């Protein structure tokens, strides 16, 4: 019963976009951390996380994304979330991090 985080990486002029597919929780957070660190290695100006196919995220996933954002800010880069489903947006509202992560 092993779950992996499904994703696709797309280059952008100012960095990269990663499109995720599946639920993000404590089980996949270590893999998410590795993935984000790798995507941030070239120090992109912008890393967009496409959350359109993510129906659920918990505090482990959120903390991992916040960690990536803090890392990117080290070179004035940013990590931005796009396409959040209502349930995921509600989770970020509950966490009080909607503005920090630029969720529209």
């Amino acid at each position: 019963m092993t779950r992996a985080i499904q994703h696709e990486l797309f280059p952008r002029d100012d960095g990269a976009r990663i499109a995720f597919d599946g639920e993000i929780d404590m089980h996949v957070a270590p893999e998410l951390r590795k993935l984000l660190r790798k995507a941030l290695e070239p120090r992109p100006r912008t890393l967009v996380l496409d959350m359109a196919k993510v129906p659920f995220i918990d505090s482990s996933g959120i903390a991992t994304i916040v960690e990536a954002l803090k890392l990117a800010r080290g070179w004035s880069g940013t990590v931005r979330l796009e396409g959040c489903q209502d349930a995921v947006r509600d989770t970020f509202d509950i966490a009080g991090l909607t503005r920090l992560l630029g969720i529209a």
Partner: protein
Amino acid sequence: MRRTARASPEAAPAPPGGGGSARAGVEITFPSSSEYLALLRCAARWFARRCGFADRDCGRIVLAAVEATTNIIRHAYGMDAAKRITLRMREVEGGLELEFLDEGKAVPPEVFEQARREVLKPGGLGVRMMKRCMDGFSYEPRPEGGARLILRKLRGAGCGEDAP
């Protein structure tokens, strides 16, 4: 060791000294591995819908259940996947209750207060989210070892704690 989850559709017993008007419920026991969070989400969502909660509240109940289980795995069991977690879900007057039982190390109550202040430290965000998703939160060590966490959600009550 083969790890399995077990579910019982019988009435989940009311917690000692609490509840009172508890109705029929479900009890599931599963290993303390994060692999089982997907199963937990399915069970909690099914029960929340069965109790008549709207979609947004179902999502919040599921989130609180995941945060509670994650805390048990991380703090009570120190990531040991070979332990057990029991979840009792029951309908109560005006809503539902989720009761989590573990056999691990009890968390001192002040940790929850600390988590309230330090939301971005490990565990802090999860506790805060769990409290905001639900309307009642009760945590106590059990005399026989381990701890009991009870989360209560009332229909149409909104957010549990004030917005950050």
